[in-house]
């Protein structure tokens, strides 16, 4: 920070009205005479009368000359105030803060936000780009700062009014070009192109509490709020009451459908509004109060119908301007009956990532890039809204969030939206019967994610359990015997053979397999496990067929000489296997090898459990793919970027 010290304190007479005036701060260049409102500049040659300056417009600012605050441990006093006019209308205040240690600071106040900046000398050789070559959204490397400062606005300001002592040569109605920049962590800077080379002021956005002026805010605002009067429409005389009187630039008259300009608290008729386009009606009335996150209340003070035209089709949506005196402005966007709560974000917090952007560590995919047009307005607005006003609007999505960039030739604005369900909007405004949404909103979250996430978690758990169970399923062979069936009377005459005794353990499945030396023939075996103690029987059928040969396609086989069957666990004990068989080649003896095994891993249980558990997450995944397809079918970029 630079301590600017010019001249000592001195008293003189106003060159215009001869009233006594006093330059209190050594850094003061211009003093507004409190008697005749002439801007009096002190120079080496004496005092110059720079002309009359207008009265400061009542802006309902919580600040006033003489207020004392603290910043970085240093006390300051507000000793001067300049009021500037934006080229698109609207005013902002710049307060001159004289610090006890000699610092000179500027406290800019615009749309309820405060920015404290200090003159920043540039390093030797550093050159600020010309105003014309400044690119919106690009950083200005020449400015020494802890974080890159990117250009968010270029404009022309007109000095319209002043009060107190000003540390530069303020000429009434003089126009000057400037550029505003912002950086991460509320960093802020302004380049003043009225000087050559341009002067740079660097600082940050602050709250009044942070600079020791918090107490002034509430008392001042409360007093002013009580004194707010209703105004009359200059066209039809209808009574209009403004909710944000100090910030409103435009208001519509609900009685005669006129668009009115608000200039320093006075209304003037601009034009009759064009008829509303063929778009759905507003569903929320102006004046509706909604309670949002953290129980913060916002009042709906304005509503806009906007549209974009994509591939010849015009799409409409509504935007409601919300206002809370302590917080400022927010938006509630209503499109295809989907809702989004939208708040402004610092442009420096958004980083480009190819076609996409990153914000707060979250990647947002580009969704739409089209000119958005204001079709119709209703209520009051903090900017000079016009029907037909067009901006380039780019939407980036990361459901349930959406980032929007609105860009004109001179300004960029980023905003961050959060999807609200109909139920949330109903609850916020204590209403019912909101129309149901259709299609899929760009940032509408998929609601079936729970079943996908937890469904796959359950499948994972199943796999872990299956792996855990592997050591407990070691296969053991309890019988391996070869039996021989002698020649039979016919193919349907059954023959029975008993195996030797063997022992089965409890809680283990049992697999019986048989291998018969059949060639182009069949053998049908019924195997009975007989419990020697209880004489109870468990039966399985083991049909064996094996055919082979060759044809024009080569050799072929069908069936297998080995077949098995598995049963659940049986009570532990001694068992005998009774095999009853019939066969095609009954005239010849048939050797059959029978085996009985326990603890056989078959995977059937696992596959069945897996399939059952996979149904819901599988369906969920299918739904999600269809949902995303519908979402991106509305996009200009198809989600492939």
């Amino acid at each position, binding site marked *: 920070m630079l301590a600017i010290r010019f001249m000592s304190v001195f008293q003189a007479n106003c060159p215009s009205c001869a009233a006594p005036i006093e330059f209190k701060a050594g850094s003061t260049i211009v003093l507004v005479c409190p008697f005749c409102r002439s801007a009096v500049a002190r120079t080496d040659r004496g005092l110059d009368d720079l002309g009359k300056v207008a009265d400061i417009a009542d802006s309902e600012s919580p600040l006033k000359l003489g207020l004392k605050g603290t910043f970085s441990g240093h006390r300051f006093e507000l000793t001067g105030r300049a009021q500037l006019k934006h080229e698109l209308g609207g005013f902002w205040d710049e307060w001159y803060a004289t610090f006890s240690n000699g610092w000179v600071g500027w406290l800019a106040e615009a749309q309820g936000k405060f920015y404290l900046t200090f003159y920043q000398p540039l390093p030797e050789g550093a050159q600020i780009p010309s105003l014309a070559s400044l690119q919106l959204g690009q950083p200005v490397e020449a400015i020494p700062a802890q974080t890159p400062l990117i250009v968010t606005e270029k404009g022309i300001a007109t000095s319209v009014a002043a009060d107190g002592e000003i540390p530069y040569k303020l000429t009434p109605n003089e126009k000057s070009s400037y550029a505003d920049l912002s950086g991460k962590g509320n960093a802020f800077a302004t380049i003043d192109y009225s000087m050559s080379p341009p002067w740079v002021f660097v600082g940050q956005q602050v709250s009044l509490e942070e600079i020791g002026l918090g107490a002034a805010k509430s008392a001042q605002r409360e007093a002013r709020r009580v004194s707010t009067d209703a105004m009359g429409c200059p066209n039809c005389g209808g009574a209009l009451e403004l909710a944000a009187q100090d910030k409103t630039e435009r208001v519509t008259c609900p009685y005669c459908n006129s668009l009115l300009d608000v200039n320093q608290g006075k209304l003037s008729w601009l034009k009759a509004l064009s008829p509303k386009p063929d778009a759905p009606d507003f*569903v*929320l009335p102006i004046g509706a109060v909604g309670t949002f996150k953290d129980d913060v209340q916002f009042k709906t003070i304005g509503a806009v119908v906007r549209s974009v035209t994509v591939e010849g089709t015009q799409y409409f949506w509504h935007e409601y301007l919300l206002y809370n005196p302590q917080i400022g402005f927010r938006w509630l966007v209503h499109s295809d009956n989907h809702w989004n709560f939208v708040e402004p974000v610092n442009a420096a917090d958004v980083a480009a990532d190819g076609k996409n952007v990153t914000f707060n560590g979250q990647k947002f995919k580009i969704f739409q890039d089209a000119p958005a047009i204001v079709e119709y307005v209703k209520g009051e607005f903090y900017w000079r809204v016009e029907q037909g006003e067009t901006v380039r609007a780019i939407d980036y999505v990361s459901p349930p969030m959406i980032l929007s960039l609105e860009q004109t030739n001179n300004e960029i604005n980023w905003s961050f939206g959060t999807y609200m369900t109909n*139920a949330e909007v*109903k*609850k916020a405004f*204590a*209403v*019912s*019967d*909101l129309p149901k949404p259709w299609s899929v909103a760009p940032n509408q979250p998929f609601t079936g994610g*729970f*079943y996908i996430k*937890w*469904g796959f978690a*359950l499948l994972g*758990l*199943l796999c872990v*359990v*299956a792996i855990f*169970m592997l050591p*407990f*399923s070691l296969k053991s062979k309890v019988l391996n015997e070869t039996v021989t069936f002698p020649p039979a009377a016919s193919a349907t005459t059954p023959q029975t053979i008993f195996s030797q005794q063997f022992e089965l353990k*409890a*809680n*283990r*499945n049992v697999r019986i397999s048989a291998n018969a030396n059949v060639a182009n023939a069949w053998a049908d075996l019924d195997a*009975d496990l007989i*419990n020697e103690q*209880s*004489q*109870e*029987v*468990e*039966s*399985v*059928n083991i049909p064996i067929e094996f055919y082979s040969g060759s044809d024009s396609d080569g050799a072929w086989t069908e069936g297998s000489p080995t077949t098995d*069957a*598995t*049963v*659940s*666990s*049986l009570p532990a004990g001694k068992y005998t296997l*009774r095999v009853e068989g019939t066969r095609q080649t009954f005239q010849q003896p048939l050797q059959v090898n029978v085996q009985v095994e*326990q*603890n056989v891993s*078959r995977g*059937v*249980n*696992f596959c*069945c*459990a897996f399939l*059952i*558990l996979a149904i*819901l997450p599988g369906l969920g995944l299918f739904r999600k793919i269809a949902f995303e397809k519908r979402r991106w079918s509305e996009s200009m970029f198809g989600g492939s970027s």
Partner: protein
Amino acid sequence: MRKTGSTGNDDKQRTNDKTMLRTLFLIFGLGVILAYTSASWLGWEFANAGSNSRLGMPFIYGGFRGGK
């Protein structure tokens, strides 16, 4: 649009239903895993052969059936 004194009863009901369905889903899923673990531990076979059935479809062995 109708202004309501106390809103959200239907929405609350819907939220409760949603929560209940999710809970049921988790209980069902954990039940399947528990059944699989039990079957593996106790040697139960799903879709096995066995008994007098020649279709091989009785799922879980529930005791001896019949005798010869």
